[in-house]
């Protein structure tokens, strides 16, 4: 796995999402998790919650395509208490909800902030979509794109906005690589070519502690988030 990267956060301008509230307090870091159907976004969210919930106050917004299954899964697995999980409907347009018209997601995020204050971290999970789906910078501060080796090791080569621009690219299910004939070295080389210095994490959530690299990266982003404005 590769975790070289910069911890600078993009400059953020949004009508609704200034990092510091009028009263001087800092809102939660908003992190988007996107990626194709079945790549392990919900499993990654669950693992992040389990790993970080003891030291951080976390909430999750899910964008299910046509059910509330992802939200239900997270509730059933009891990764967070139910009031910390909100579901947004996307009218068959998951990419619209996270990119072109973020109003429903912003509502959900703000509602969580209001009722659970203080929150450190809000994870916004997109509905499973295609390789062009990315989050608006008006909705999230930083974003993770999750793909998996079993969907084909040529995905990093194909690129697309998710692969090339996400702040962290996660390649999940590395344990399956030998079974599906995926070449992890090729995937890593292709990802480097597409992403330059942006980090890539190769993980297997089937392994105990498999989410570690993503949790570490997120913790670093959170530290950078807290350092902003206090300097």
């Amino acid at each position: 796995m590769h975790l070289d990267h910069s911890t600078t956060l993009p400059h953020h301008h949004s009508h609704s999402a200034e990092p510091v509230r009028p009263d001087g307090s800092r809102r939660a870091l908003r992190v988007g998790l996107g990626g194709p159907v079945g790549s392990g976004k919900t499993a990654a969210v669950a693992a992040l919650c389990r790993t970080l919930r003891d030291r951080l106050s976390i909430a999750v917004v899910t964008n299910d395509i046509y059910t509330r299954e992802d939200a239900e899964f997270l509730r059933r697995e009891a990764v967070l208490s139910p009031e910390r999980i909100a579901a947004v409907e996307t009218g068959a347009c998951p990419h619209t909800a996270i990119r072109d018209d973020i109003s429903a997601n912003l509502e959900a995020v703000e509602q969580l902030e209001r009722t659970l204050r203080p929150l450190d971290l809000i994870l916004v999970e997109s509905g499973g979509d295609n390789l062009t789906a990315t989050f608006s910078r008006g909705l999230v501060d930083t974003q993770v794109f999750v793909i998996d080796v079993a969907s084909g090791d040529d995905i990093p080569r194909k690129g697309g906005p998710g692969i090339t621009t996400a702040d962290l690219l996660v390649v999940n299910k590395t344990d399956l690589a030998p079974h599906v004939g995926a070449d992890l070295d090729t995937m890593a080389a292709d990802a480097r070519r597409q992403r330059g210095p942006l980090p890539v994490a190769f993980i297997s959530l089937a392994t105990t502690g498999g989410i570690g690299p993503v949790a570490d990266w997120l913790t670093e982003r959170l530290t950078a988030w807290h350092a902003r404005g206090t300097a």
Partner: protein
Amino acid sequence: MTGAALLVLADGRFPAGGYAHSGGMEAAVASRSVHDAASLAAFCRGRLHTAGLTAAGLAAAAAAGHDPLMLDGAADARTPAPAVRAAARRLGRQLLRAARATWPSPDLDLLARSRPQGVHQPVVLGATARTAGLAPLDAARCAAYESAAGPATAAVRLLGLDPLDATALLARIAGEVDDVARAATDAASRVTADGVGALPAASAPLLDIIGERHAARTVRLFAS
């Protein structure tokens, strides 16, 4: 007044959350009452002349400068189904967010502060139109058009109907949209003299029933 502002406000791409709502279409498709271009047309015309007319009246009155909180009460009285009311307030909140960013104004800020839980969408639409320098008739047109265009777009996604048929339908009923908008604006012009009772109160019981039914479904694409 600027005509282009009307295009901005009426544009389906205006980021105010409408794309995730079907105006009852998903429930109508689920119960098979809408299944083809002809039944789509019947549904859209029905919604235009009921919920659309009522929404257009509220929008025109708000655009004319009547108290939005009073109109919000009038909207509540005209929206008996709790699920439909909740959807209208939610869309109102989302529209108000977009409107305040697009046409900043103290009036819109005050409206947001007065009702944090949201104001009915047609009322926000009218208040927004006023801020954008548009006339009551413009706001009414917007509301009336959206009452048919929203479900038509949803039907294209739900049924795989030819999008050209859906658009041709909207063009075909454009005259009716104008008639509804004019009737709504006329009614709104009587609010000063006769109070909010002058506003249209056309209802569609079936839309209310399927709206409630839809809210109870666990598997759905659209929020309403």
